[in-house]
């Protein structure tokens, strides 16, 4: 069936339940692979993806027929998702290095591609907070009117310097073992000198964490601080608590 089969499978899926891409099941069929990038009528552009989760839509042909997102905006959506996932990585109890590396590589590739095209990759999701946290929680603005802030980075205005991929500096925190280098990085002596909580203002964290990260991961107002910032925060809060207990007694 080849390429034709792949595309018609999408459109006719709702009509015939039994149609499965069987021709390509046991052959390496390069015709059917990856055309989602070129074909606008794929799932990327479907309204299912653009709407927030749980939003029902009519089961009609209008879904498939909707004009697809142009490639740059498809790419932008994936880039946003990438960044969001990387930020979310550390909120999880068990960060997976493999996942982070795959996300970082994907992110880097998209950013390289954007740079090659002359479009500088936007400075992380920060400029458009309602969209950044997750397309799941809030329906992102419709792609037809340009999302606030995104298009400003296009050819029109002088683009901000692209930040280094924020994921890079996040790999350092993956090691499980008790390595003393972690302690020296934190400069614990400074913390123990002064237990005043005013020390834990966000502005002071730049001294403790790689500065490259701050630019890319400046938290949106609604977001929890992400990445190593959050890491240090929880650790330091614990130490703060311990110190308070010690001082009180």
């Amino acid at each position, binding site marked *: 069936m080849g390429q034709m089969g792949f595309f018609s499978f999408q459109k006719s899926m709702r009509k015939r339940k039994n149609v*499965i891409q069987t*021709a*390509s099941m046991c052959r390496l069929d390069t015709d059917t*692979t*990856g055309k989602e990038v070129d074909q606008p009528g794929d799932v990327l552009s479907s309204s299912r993806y653009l709407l927030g989760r749980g939003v029902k839509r009519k089961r009609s042909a209008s879904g498939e027929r909707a004009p697809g997102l142009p490639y740059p905006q498809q790419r932008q959506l994936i880039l946003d998702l990438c960044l969001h996932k990387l930020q979310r990585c550390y909120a999880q109890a068990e960060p997976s290095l493999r996942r982070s590396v795959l996300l970082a590589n994907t992110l880097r590739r998209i950013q390289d591609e954007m740079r090659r095209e002359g479009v500088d990759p936007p400075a992380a999701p920060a400029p458009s907070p309602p969209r950044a946290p997750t397309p799941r929680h809030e329906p992102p603005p419709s792609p037809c009117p340009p999302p606030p802030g995104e298009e400003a980075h296009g050819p029109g205005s002088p683009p901000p310097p692209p930040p280094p991929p924020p994921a890079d500096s996040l790999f350092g925190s993956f090691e499980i*073992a008790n390595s003393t280098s972690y302690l020296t990085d934190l400069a614990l002596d400074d913390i123990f000198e002064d237990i005043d909580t005013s020390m834990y203002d966000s502005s002071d964290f730049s001294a403790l964490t790689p500065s490259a990260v701050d630019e890319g991961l400046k938290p949106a107002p609604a977001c929890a601080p992400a990445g190593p910032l959050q890491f240090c925060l929880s650790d330091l809060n614990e130490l703060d608590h311990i110190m308070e207990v010690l001082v009180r007694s």
Partner: protein
Amino acid sequence: MGEDADTRKINHSFLRDYVTEADVISTAEFNHTGDLLATGDKGGRVVIFQREPASKAESCCHGEYNVYSTFQSHEPDFDYLKSLEIEEKINKIRWIPQLNAAHCLLSTNDKTIKLWKVSERDRRPEGYNLKDEEGRVKDPSTVTALQVPVLKHTDLMVEVSSRRVFANGHTFHVNSISVNSDCETYLSADDLRINLWHLDITDRCFNIVDMKPLNMEELTEVITAAEFHPQHCHLFGYSSSKGSIRLCDMRAAALCDRHAKLFEEPEDPGSRSFFSEIISSISDVKFSHSGRYLLTRDYLTVKVWDLNMERGPIETYQVHDYLRSKLCSLYENDCIFDKFECAWNSTDRESGQDVTLEAVQDSSKPCAVLKTRRIGSDGRRGGRRRRDDVSVDSLDFSKRILHVAWHPAHNIIAIAATNNLYIFQDRAAPNM
């Protein structure tokens, strides 16, 4: 296995029905004879099933698997410096070839590998002079006659004891362990390093592969699976997140950072997409029983490689290509990062009937009837459809089968899907 799908009967037995998170099965492995099947779960427990001898009436069918032993292998741990919990989830179990009456297995979580000895006891000594039947010490003055303790038969007891704990060898999450054919050493692999251990020595190990860059910011590739060659004790292979497999020879150097062979398929420029790299990440690698071939699993395909040919696989099977149109959704809900497993059947490919089985769990039925769709290995049977194939839209992405083990001698496979373990026997062709 028989070619005709209709004559193939499915015998599935439900061995666990719990729905708690801790019961989610995380790994399954048959021992070398296939009589024992060990499963590990997220709660750190290992459950071993033993095959009951087949009754004479059903000569074509093998016995059922029943619970043989259960024990807590790993407990949750806590890394105080990082304020991180180390999960007790069992990542891998590997049996050690049997040397005596006891069975030994290695089980590992993210950080620590443990060697467990499973032994049977069906006798106990009775008739002690200084202890009574309950084990309480008798007053020596009450002993009037001496007796010789004798061994008496008791009900079968299965005892599991921890024999070795291989700790502190890894700073990243352990994803694979593999026992060497010399039965003395084994390797353990985490995201960036592979260590070689001796089964009797727990306080040190050799690092044989180190992929950690000096600057972690340059990290682009991690190790996803590793295995020793089944016959050559100096060869091992490991797969990476970039879709390549490296074969290393331990005779060449102490640190095998330079591979002896690199198996990599050049990327097809026509099929590039945003997710190309993610779906090319290999999640499992297995040597064939003969040692001639490698089986690798990435997100959408299963590939067979000939160890003599590095430039590409000799066979590629699209396991669920219908998901290709769903990659974005799968990426969104993180399913695209799932790690699937693969397994060889007992005769590898010699019979020419290497069959890929795909089980799609029908989530609407409470007793989880598994529909299997058979994908033929040769082109003639390709494209064969059964009437009850399911459509992609109705697939529930939360129900996925991540763990599989194939009996070493017979066509019996164990499939773990979340909390449930299914064992399939091929009644049409039980012995291959």
